[in-house]
């Protein structure tokens, strides 16, 4: 896993892009990311893997927004990232986890070659107020072993907005 200093070096070399970038967000072996001011929720009683599900957008005001248990909120990072030659992994802040908030449901591994903002899968155990621009997690980078000819051409390449699941494209 890359150290904080190595992440900075890779940014200078252009293998990692983080925008906006601020040195104060470099950790010992990660980069801290922040919550954008929008949430997306599904507007369906039953989510379908085979079909596109209806969604609704919520803007998080400056005074914050209270998340409710039992609801799935999609959010996104303020930061836009690109990566070549490393595998990025997103993880939530320990201090948010201690409030019972998770920001991703899967392992958080990204793909080598991914470009875009990160969509967050947010849920909570108790009602919790969150705020725009708050620190919500960090990205770590793993070296990749072997030939990199298989590039990310996935459903979410270049995503800028909070992006609902496109699993229906698999069927």
């Amino acid at each position: 896993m890359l150290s904080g200093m190595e992440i900075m070096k890779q940014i200078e070399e252009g293998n990692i892009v983080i925008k906006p970038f601020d040195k104060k967000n470099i950790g010992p072996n990660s980069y801290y990311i922040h919550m954008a001011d929008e949430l997306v929720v599904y507007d369906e009683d039953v989510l379908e893997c085979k079909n596109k599900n209806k969604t609704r957008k919520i803007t998080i005001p400056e005074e914050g927004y209270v998340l409710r248990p039992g609801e799935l909120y999609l959010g996104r990072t303020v930061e836009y990232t690109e990566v070549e030659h490393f595998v990025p992994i997103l993880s939530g802040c320990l201090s948010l986890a201690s409030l019972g908030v998770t920001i991703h449901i899967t392992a958080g591994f990204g793909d080598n070659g991914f470009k875009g903002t990160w969509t967050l899968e947010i849920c909570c155990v108790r009602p919790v107020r969150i705020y725009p621009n708050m620190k919500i997690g960090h990205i770590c980078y793993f070296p990749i072993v072997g030939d990199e000819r298989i590039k990310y051409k996935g459903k979410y390449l270049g995503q800028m907005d909070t992006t609902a699941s496109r699993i229906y494209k698999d069927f």
Partner: protein
Amino acid sequence: MLSGQEIIEAVERGDITIKPFNKEQVNPNSYNLTLGQELYVYSDGILDSKKKNKLNKITIPDDGYILSPNEIYLALSNEYTENQVYVPQMSGRSSIGRVGLMVHSNAGGGSIGFNGKWLFNITCLVPTKVYKDMQIGQLWFFPIIGDDSIRYEGEHHNQKKVKSTKI
């Protein structure tokens, strides 16, 4: 972590076994796992960590099955894997996370030496319809550092059937 092409080459040289293996399921640095047709749910109202809890089988019909929140569904991948050289790690795909489906309740780390199908512990936040054979999870492979003579011989070794948890 192995690149997708390196996963293909590791399968070809026998360092990783994935059966069935389909190149279309290879990603830039992972391999997609598909959902088997059978789900298992615990039939006891309160689960007891000290006892073997009873399981009921559900077969996913061709037109899908709606999962309910507050239930845990156990299922296996269609894929059988052998991992003698690299450390496998399993988790859900991004598209699965984005509908609030979790396919494992812990870190998803596998052990070097683990042979078997992968057990999904599936939970959902809202009712969600799933289908058999859908690409639900993915596997990553990490090189191991140091002497790897301590091998996985745990309770899920060679698993080809869903079994109740053994604590």
